[in-house]
């Protein structure tokens, strides 16, 4: 949104570039402890705050305590809370307040500061719980943005060049490192300095205080409380409906005719749509054309050939990656969560269900390489569909990543698996190592919804994921319900969804990228509208629906915090014509939207109950 982002402050506070320590590790509060009718204060719930009536007095007390402490500390203490601390899930007032109290009041049983009073001291490593939030560099985004490359190869070569030298951070790229007091002033060209004395309240995270450690709540029930129930249908009109009203009417009427199997009428309407579309401009015309084509295919039963035509998809996918921030947002936010989950682990294994050209991984590897204490050994297992030209494209991707890893000195291991469906996967194929030895993260960007086309597939995949005993599962999905039982509803929802998406592309700088992105999205439209059964793989569902599926399957939310939010917001500012983009926090998940209409959601999950993972 253009509202305020022009821009932040004249002199970026260097302390804001540092990653923030917080109380203990990445927040894993089980929001499912706030179930329906669990004595939640209804009035506050409507306003987005989950507080149990029985906890109200205690929450009030925490507020008072915080007020008191904040009066006692100097202004720096407060600014620390604002710029350093990572906040999580503000809807859970009690926990949010508690985390701030812990920041301002180090636990009394432990006094690392001793004689130093409240002044920052360089803490002995042994006292520190490895604090979580390193934050990713977005340098690679800058590079990839700046250079339009048609083939995948070059992306990695660029990424490996000395642009990663942190001493010369260009423009708006952000680098931030966690607790150890190093500062990287964006304007500075000197080597990183050590403790900056202005930072009074350093890393108070220390070892987890008793209040930080909550026993995991019992497995959650299906629904989550306080989230807009069942179906919320957000719509943004980017142009007055008066303009395209006849066109939209015709589209809807045609879809209705199709649903009623009145194919003669439908055919007549499709032709009419063609004429009406010509008189429209911009996004509306293109969207209408794609939907009309999809309707025509459905009417004439001329179904699209190969939903999995891979080589062309790759090219389209990459242009989409360049043109608009959706994929970058997805990668960025997922990587942030993975980075935090891998804190302190010496060997890590990422299992990627959405390998494509592996564009998500250089940034993560880079961040791991820069980790304090050195990078872990990094193993990557990638899944992808078979390619039509018989080339082993997954292997090629792996080789490039290996070269990159070598340049940045990260021990790297790679394996690619070709599979028509993720449901073909078995844990035994993966050569999993004991979780004490190797931490696993599972990543899925726009892949899970495809499994909904076959009965049982999603459940099989969830159960296999559980067998992997992951520290974290990151999931990015479209924020829409395009999988309802009624065709007309799916049509309507997707019409608005893709209209919004296409509108966001209009501001793109490169017209070629824009066209390719539109083709990329057009294929999805075609699938949603023209296909059925196992062929209809674009079965997008909303966050609420995914939450239900995941919690039923035995997963609990891991919250993404204010640091990821901020970095994601700043990433968006890099996109020209992108003033309409905005990030929103929703009960620990992050959503990217266009003009307040959420379009994609990143969520993170862990096993609710680790010990029973094997038996599932």
């Amino acid at each position, binding site marked *: 949104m253009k509202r305020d982002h022009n821009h932040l402050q004249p002199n970026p506070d260097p302390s804001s570039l540092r990653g923030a320590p917080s109380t203990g590790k990445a927040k894993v509060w089980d929001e499912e402890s706030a179930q329906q009718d669990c004595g939640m*204060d209804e009035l*506050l719930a409507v306003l987005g705050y989950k507080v149990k009536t029985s906890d109200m007095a205690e929450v*009030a007390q925490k507020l008072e305590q915080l007020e008191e402490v904040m*009066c006692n500390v100097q202004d720096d203490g407060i600014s620390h809370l604002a710029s350093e601390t990572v906040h999580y899930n503000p809807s859970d007032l009690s926990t949010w307040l508690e985390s701030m109290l812990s920041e301002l009041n180090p636990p009394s049983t432990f006094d690392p500061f001793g004689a130093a009073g409240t002044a920052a001291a360089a803490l002995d490593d042994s006292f520190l719980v490895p604090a979580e939030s390193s934050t990713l560099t977005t340098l690679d985004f800058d590079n990839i943005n700046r250079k339009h490359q048609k083939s995948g190869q070059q992306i990695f070569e660029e990424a490996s060049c000395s642009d990663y030298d942190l001493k010369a951070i260009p423009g708006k790229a952000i680098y931030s490192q966690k607790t150890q007091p190093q500062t990287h002033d964006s304007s500075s060209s000197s080597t990183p300095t050590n403790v900056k004395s202005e930072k009074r309240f350093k890393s108070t995270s220390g070892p987890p205080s008793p209040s930080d450690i909550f026993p995991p709540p019992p497995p959650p029930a299906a629904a989550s409380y306080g989230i807009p129930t069942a179906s919320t*249908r957000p719509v943004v009109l*980017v142009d007055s409906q008066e303009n395209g009203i006849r066109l939209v009417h015709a589209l809807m009427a045609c879809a209705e005719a199709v649903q009623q199997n009145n194919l003669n009428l439908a055919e007549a309407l499709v032709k009419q749509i063609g004429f009406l579309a010509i008189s429209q401009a911009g996004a509306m015309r293109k969207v209408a054309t794609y939907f009309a084509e999809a309707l025509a295919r459905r009417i004439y039963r001329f179904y699209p050939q190969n939903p999995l035509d891979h080589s062309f998809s790759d090219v389209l996918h990459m242009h989409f990656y360049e043109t608009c921030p959706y994929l970058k947002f997805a990668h960025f936010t997922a990587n942030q969560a993975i980075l935090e989950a891998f804190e302190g682990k010496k060997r890590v294994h990422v299992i990627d269900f959405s390998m494509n050209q592996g564009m998500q991984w250089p940034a993560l590897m880079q961040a791991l390489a820069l980790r304090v204490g050195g990078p872990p050994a990094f193993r990557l297992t990638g899944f992808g569909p078979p390619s039509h030209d018989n080339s082993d494209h997954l292997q090629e991707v792996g080789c490039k990543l290996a070269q990159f890893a070598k340049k940045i000195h990260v021990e790297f291991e790679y394996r690619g698996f070709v599979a028509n469906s993720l449901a073909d996967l078995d844990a035994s194929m993966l050569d999993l190592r004991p979780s004490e030895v190797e931490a696993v993260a599972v990543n899925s960007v726009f892949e899970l919804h495809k499994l909904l086309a076959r009965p049982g597939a999603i459940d099989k995949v969830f159960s296999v994921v559980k067998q992997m005993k992951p520290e974290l599962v990151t999931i990015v999905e479209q924020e829409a319900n395009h999988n309802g039982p009624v065709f007309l509803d799916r049509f309507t929802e997707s019409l608005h969804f893709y209209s919004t998406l296409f509108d966001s592309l209009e501001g793109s700088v490169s017209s070629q990228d824009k066209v390719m992105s539109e083709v990329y999205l057009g294929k999805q439209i075609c699938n949603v509208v023209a296909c059925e059964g196992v062929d209809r793989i674009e079965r997008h569902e909303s966050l609420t629906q995914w939450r239900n599926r995941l919690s039923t399957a035995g997963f609990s939310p891991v919250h993404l915090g*204010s640091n990821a939010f901020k970095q994601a917001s700043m990433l968006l500012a890099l996109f020209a014509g992108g003033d309409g983009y905005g990030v929103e926090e929703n009960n620990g998940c992050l959503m990217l939207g266009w003009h307040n209409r959420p379009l994609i959601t990143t969520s993170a999950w862990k096993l609710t109950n680790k010990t029973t993972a094997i038996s599932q």
Partner: protein
Amino acid sequence: MNYGFLSSFFQKDLFLVLGFVFECLKERGMAGSNEVNLNECKTVVPLNTWVLISSFKLAYNLLRRPDGTFNRHLAEFLDRKVPANLNPVDGVFSFDVLIDRATGLLCRIYRPATAEEPEPNIVELEKPVVGDVVPVIIFFHGGSFAHSSANSAIYDTLCRRLVGICKAVVVSVNYRRAPENRYPCAYDDGWTAFKWVNSRSWLQSQKDSKVHIYLAGDSSGGNIAHHVAARAVESGIDVLGNILLNPMFGGQERTESEMRLDGKYFVTLRDRDWYWRAFLPEGENRDHPACNPFGPNGRSLEGIKFPKSLVVVAGLDLIQDWQLAYVEGLRKAGKEVKLLYMEQATIGFYLLPNNNHFHTVMDEISEFVGSDC
């Protein structure tokens, strides 16, 4: 005629005495925060209201930086938002409209679902309103010009209520905020939204094919409503009424209520000053007419067809003297104004329906708008 205002004179004397005592007890250098005040504050509002407003206060303290800049990212992260929803909830559905691409100005439209069409057709969101007289309320959310959005949960909830009680269409304006966008951005956005609403044929009442517009807002939104109304009537467009809830006004002088209530009920003078400094053009002081419309740099409204106003003042709001002066200014210029002085009300009382002030005010608003139908 509201008699509550008169009886408050006696209350005020008592407050003065108590206030003096509390002042003596204050030891810390900071405005107003000590246990006595916290307890007192808690006794006048329900506990969940206290929790809500205190949480805002806490968050807002984190967001304002001493150098006048604002932590916008953290603000957006912390703000609880809700999406628009075409599915009617309690008979009201909503959708967002981008009304000015250049500035990214969004409005959220709230409409009542009808018996004939319980499930609004996604194609017909801009279907003509049905009725001889259909009030359209243009709402400006509060937040002292810096906080909140049209899609903030607190304001989404309030707007939905207004639809119900006024049988109106509500248009909530997502105006640009300070400090990134100073005066006159918020007013310009308000004016853009006003013109847009006024030119929608689908919002016209059947009786006279005109859009029946009311302007409403709380805190900074109330301030914006006033200024947009002034601009509207200058341009010859009718506004049927202004509804100002705890409107944000101020001035260079320190008034008695400001000194007496500083820090006592969630709000401090210091933060008020911060927000004015963030909104007003650099170098201007609080006697700028945006802040102090009837002050030394203000302009009389005599002879101008300014709409009738409903002004709600909370008796525990430290800026009430300015709000009362505003009411006086309207009266002196011969404008119709009804003052609702809610003695024991604090800021934000209208956010939760758990107190009498809330219901009183909602009834008054309903009547205020209904009286034209």
